[in-house]
C-alpha cells in the first residue's frame, strides 16, 4: 500500500447558503472514509463573505433555496478561486442548486436567467411543471477514474427536490440514466465535465452512494489507497431505498405523492 504525505483538503462552500438538505453530510462521509483508512483529512468550511481557498483538493457545493443560490453564484464568480482550483485539477462535487450554479446559466427566484460559473457544461431552465420531489434512482452508473479507468458505482439512489430542467452540453456526460424520478428532466441524471461532477441526488448523495464517495476520493488520492470498508449499513440502506423507489413508481406505499414514471 502506498501512502500519502499531506492531508486531503476538503472545502465545504457556503453551507449556510447551500446546505438546506443535509448535504453537509457529504463532507462527514468523505472525511470519515479517509480517516478509517488512516488518511489524514482537513475539512475547511467557507462561509458567505469569506475568502475561498484555491488550494483544496476537493470542493463540495450543496443544495439550497433560490435566493441564497444566487448569492452563492455571485460570490463564487467574484472570487475566481474555484476556477483556479479546477484548473489545477481539483475535484468538485455539487448537488442540486450547487450543480445549477456551476453550469453556464440558471434561473433565479424570479425566473430570470443568471450567469453560472461555467465549470459544468450545462444550462438549467425553468419549466412549467410541478417541482420534482421524491426518490430518484438511476440504472448502474459509472464514472471515469484516474488514468481513464471506468469505475462502477452501481445504481445511484437519492432524494430529489428541485424545479428546473438541466440540459448537458456536448462536452459533458451524464452521471447516470434515470430509472425512477426526474433527474435532469430528459432521462439522464447529473452532469460530469472533467473532474467536476453535479447531481440532483440529496440524501446526502455520498451517504447513500459509497462507491461514488470512493470514486471522488480515488480521483484525489488514487484508487490503491482506498481499502475496503465495512459498508453493511450502507448496503442495507441502498437495498431498502431501491425497493422503495420502485414501489413508489407503481403508485403504492405511503410516500407515493408526486411520483412520475419514466418511459
Amino acid at each position, binding site marked *: 500500500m502506498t501512502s500519502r504525505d499531506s492531508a486531503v483538503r476538503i472545502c465545504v462552500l457556503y453551507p449556510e447558503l447551500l446546505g438546506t438538505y443535509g448535504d453537509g*453530510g457529504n463532507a462527514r462521509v468523505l472525511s*470519515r472514509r479517509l480517516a478509517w483508512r488512516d488518511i489524514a483529512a482537513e475539512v475547511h468550511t467557507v462561509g458567505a463573505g469569506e475568502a475561498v481557498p484555491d488550494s483544496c483538493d476537493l470542493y463540495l457545493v450543496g443544495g439550497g433555496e433560490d435566493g441564497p443560490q444566487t448569492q452563492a453564484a455571485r460570490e463564487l464568480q467574484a472570487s475566481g478561486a474555484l476556477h483556479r482550483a479546477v484548473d489545477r485539477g481539483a475535484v468538485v462535487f455539487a448537488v442540486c442548486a450547487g450543480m445549477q450554479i456551476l453550469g453556464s446559466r440558471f434561473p433565479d427566484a424570479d425566473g430570470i436567467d443568471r450567469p453560472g460559473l461555467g465549470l459544468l457544461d450545462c444550462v438549467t431552465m425553468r419549466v412549467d411543471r410541478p417541482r420534482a420531489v*421524491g426518490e430518484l434512482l438511476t440504472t448502474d452508473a459509472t464514472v471515469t477514474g484516474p488514468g481513464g479507468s471506468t469505475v462502477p458505482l452501481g445504481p445511484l439512489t437519492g432524494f430529489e427536490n428541485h424545479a428546473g430542467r438541466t440540459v448537458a452540453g456536448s462536452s459533458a456526460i451524464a452521471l447516470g440514466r434515470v430509472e425512477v424520478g426526474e433527474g435532469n428532466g430528459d432521462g439522464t441524471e447529473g452532469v460530469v465535465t472533467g473532474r467536476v461532477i453535479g447531481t440532483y441526488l440529496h440524501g446526502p448523495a455520498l451517504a447513500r452512494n459509497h462507491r461514488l464517495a470512493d470514486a471522488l476520493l480515488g480521483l484525489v488520492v488514487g484508487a490503491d489507497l482506498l481499502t475496503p470498508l465495512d459498508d453493511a*449499513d450502507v448496503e*442495507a440502506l441502498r437495498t*431498502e431505498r431501491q425497493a422503495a423507489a420502485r414501489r413508489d413508481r407503481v403508485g403504492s406505499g405511503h410516500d407515493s405523492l408526486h411520483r412520475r414514471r419514466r418511459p
Partner: protein
Amino acid sequence: MSASSHPSVTGPGARARIAVALGRAVAGISRLTGRGSGSVIGGRAALRVHPGLLRALSAGREIVLVSATNGKTTTTRLIAAALAADRAVVSNSLGANMAAGIVAALGPTAPGTTAVLEVDERWLPGVLRDTEASTVVLLNLTRDQLDRSQEVRSLAAAWRRCLAETPPHTVIANADDPLVVWAARGAPTVIWVATAQRWLADAVGCPECTGRIEFGPSSWHCTGCDLSRPIPSVTVDDTAIVIDGERSPITLGLPGRINRVNAAFALATAHSLAVPLAPAADGIAAVTEVAGRYRVTTVNGRTVRLLLAKNPAGWHEAIELLAPAPAPTVVSINSRIADGLDPSWLWDVDFEILQGRFVVATGERRHDLAVRLRYAEVDHAVADTVDEAVRICAGRPEHRPGAVIDLAANYTAFQQYFERFGGDR
C-alpha cells in the same frame, strides 16, 4: 368549561350554529366508525357548509394564536394553563392546528371563552385574518418537512405580511431567531423573549438583505442592514422567569432547558393579558406532560419514556434530555408526509453527541439512521420493530435493571407509539 361568569357576547348566527351542529354530528359518526377522534373531520364538514365559520366563532372572543416550527403544542398547553388561573379557556388539541381543527375546538364552547390556539405555521396568515386575534405568540422558524412545506424564508415573509395586514394588539416573539424578529418587528407592540436559541443554521442569511448575520455569545446583528437582536423584556434562568425585571421563581413539571423557554413565553402571555403572575406560574408549573411527550409507560413490561423530536432543532433539544451515557437508547425515524418525505436532515443533527451510548435504530427509516450513526461512530443495532428495539436495549450490559429506557421518535413514529403504549391518562 363554563363561561357563565362572563357577560354574554353576541354569539354566532343561526347558520354558524347549524354548521357547528353538523360538524359535531360528523365527528360523532367518525368516532363511532373508529376513524379517530373525528374533530378534524367534523371541523372540515362544518367549514364546508359555512366557510366563514372561523370568523363567526371568533367574534367577541379574546384569542391567542401560537405558531412555530417547534414547541407550539407545549407552549399552547402552558399558556392555557397560565390563563386558566383566572378565566375559562378553550384550546385545540394535538395535531388539530389547521382551520378545521380550530373550528372543531371553538364550536362547542361559549362565545365569550378565551381561546388559546396552536396554529400550523403555514396556516397562521389565514387563521389570523379570520380570527383577528389580539395576541400572537411566535416561537421560532426552522427547517421542517421541507419537501412538503414552503421554504422557511417564504414562510417568514408570509408571517410578516399577515402581521401587517391584521395587526394583533400584542406580538410575543423570540428575540434570538432572526427570521422571527424580521417577521414580527413591524408589529405595533412586540414583547421580546430571550431564548438563547441554539439552532441557528437556518437563520444565517439575512431575510431582509440576504447579507450575513453575525452571532455573538448573547447577541446578533446583520452585517449588511439594520436587522439586529431587539432588547428582550423577558428572560429566563435556571430558577426563574424574569419579566420587566420582576422575577417569578418557577420549578417546572416538564424537563429540559427548552421547556423553561416555552414557560417564559407562556408567563409573558399571561402577564400581557393581565393574569397575576403567581397563579399563572403555578398553572404552568403543574403541567407535567403534553400530549404524551415525556410520558413514562411500559412496552412489553419494560419501562420506557416517550420523547418527541421532529427536526434538527428539536433533536438538539431532545438529545439533552436523554438519560446520560452509557444508558442505551432507542431512536425511531419515519418519513411519512407529516414527517417530511426526505430524512436527509439526519445529517444536520450532531448524532456524534451520542458516542458512548448504544443506540438501537428503528422506524421506517431505520437504515438511514443506521448509516448516520455509523458515520457518527455511534455503536448501534437496527431493529425492525419497536418491541425488538426495546428488548435489545434492555438486554444490553450497560442497561441498569429497572432504569427507564428513552425512546426518542419523530412525529408519526411518536404518534404510533403513543397510540399503542400511551394508555389514556
